[in-house]
């Protein structure tokens, strides 16, 4: 595999291998990092997806059992809202009644001890080692992030990005040096978090003006179960 004349090593072939899922984990990570910045690569992957999807035509359509749709609806829309929420009783009323009891229970049973979030990512740079620690909860969408290295120069900022599959990066927000900041993921981003790539880019103060990374990617890492 090391002889370059022996193996066609161009991006198009690499993109095809990525779409087919043939790359090793390390290769896939490296490719996903490049996808983040290179629109050309995303374009190549789209082209291959289009062609390979045509192979799925070999599979004849089969009508799924009727019971599947209601099951999907239930999972997607959730159970009907509890009565007190439908009646729109102020949470304050319930809150006051419950607050004392809950505060006691919290102390009593240690509910206030933070549960570790189920997913983590360690963002590293080749030169600086660990740059940020991220924890994520796909259920609640909460994300905590701490920038531990490569602090921004004055007038610059560090922006955190989420890349799922070959989709363009989505900004999660700005990181603060040495401080844990919390974000909430929009519901649409909470699926398929495991294996997604997080990356940090160098941006002007206030963050990327374009909604896509404009500066150098300083560190990246993939999301794994903690």
């Amino acid at each position, binding site marked *: 595999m090391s002889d370059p004349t022996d193996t066609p090593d161009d991006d198009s072939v690499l993109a095809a291998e990525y779409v*087919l899922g043939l790359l090793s984990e390390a290769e896939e990570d490296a490719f996903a990092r490049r996808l983040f910045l290179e629109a050309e690569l995303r374009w190549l992957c789209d082209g291959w997806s289009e062609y*390979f999807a045509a192979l799925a035509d070999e599979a004849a*359509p089969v*009508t799924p059992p009727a019971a*599947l749709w209601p099951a999907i609806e239930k999972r997607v*829309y959730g159970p009907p809202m509890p009565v007190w929420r439908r009646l729109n009783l102020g949470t304050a009323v319930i809150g006051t009644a419950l607050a004392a009891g809950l505060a006691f229970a919290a102390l009593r049973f240690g509910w206030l001890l933070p549960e570790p979030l189920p997913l983590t990512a360690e963002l590293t740079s080749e030169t600086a080692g660990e740059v940020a620690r991220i924890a994520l909860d796909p259920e609640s969408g909460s994300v905590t992030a701490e920038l531990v290295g490569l602090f921004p120069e004055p007038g610059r900022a560090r922006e955190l990005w989420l890349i799922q599959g070959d989709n363009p990066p989505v900004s999660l927000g700005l990181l603060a040096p040495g401080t844990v900041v919390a974000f909430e993921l929009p519901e*649409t981003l909470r699926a398929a978090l495991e294996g997604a790539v997080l990356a940090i880019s160098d941006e002007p103060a206030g963050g990327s003006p374009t909604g896509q990374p404009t500066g150098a990617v300083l560190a990246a890492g993939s999301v794994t179960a903690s």
Partner: protein
Amino acid sequence: MTAQDLDALLTRVSMADRKAFAALYSATSAKLFGICLRILKDRAMAEDALQDIYVKIWKRADAYQSGRVQPMTWLITVARNHAIDLLRKRRTAATDNAEGDETRIDRLETHEPGPAEQLLQKDTRAQISACLDELADEKAEAVRQAYLYGATYAELAAHFAVPLNTMRTWLRRSLQALRTCLSR
């Protein structure tokens, strides 16, 4: 249903439109279920997979970008990748049971693709199939196995009884030949 209709539905689904989601399901679930059955070769697994796939589609519809890939391609890719993930997990869990029972699938009730299923552009389909035909049979088969069965390089090497590196060189050359043919 045309690709344009489907594109409009997906856009509405990304805005949490439940009616659009129901319409999308009735237009596409037979195609995606067929793909799940083809890949997983197990009815119960395919039913579970289809549920997961539509939950994903609902949650991730905003990742679909109009004009990047055809809407049906996007849906097929979500379904294929999910089914392949399950298949790979099942293979690692029970390597001795990697080959499913083909005949079970053949007996399943199928229906002729209606206009709703013929959503992929005929050109694309004709082109990939013509270009695969230009490859040697076993090379085309390796590409098919990678896409439809999620075969890894190691599995392909075992199947074709060649060393891993040879397999990789072999398949990469095939992909390159395919690319050259497709761009003609």
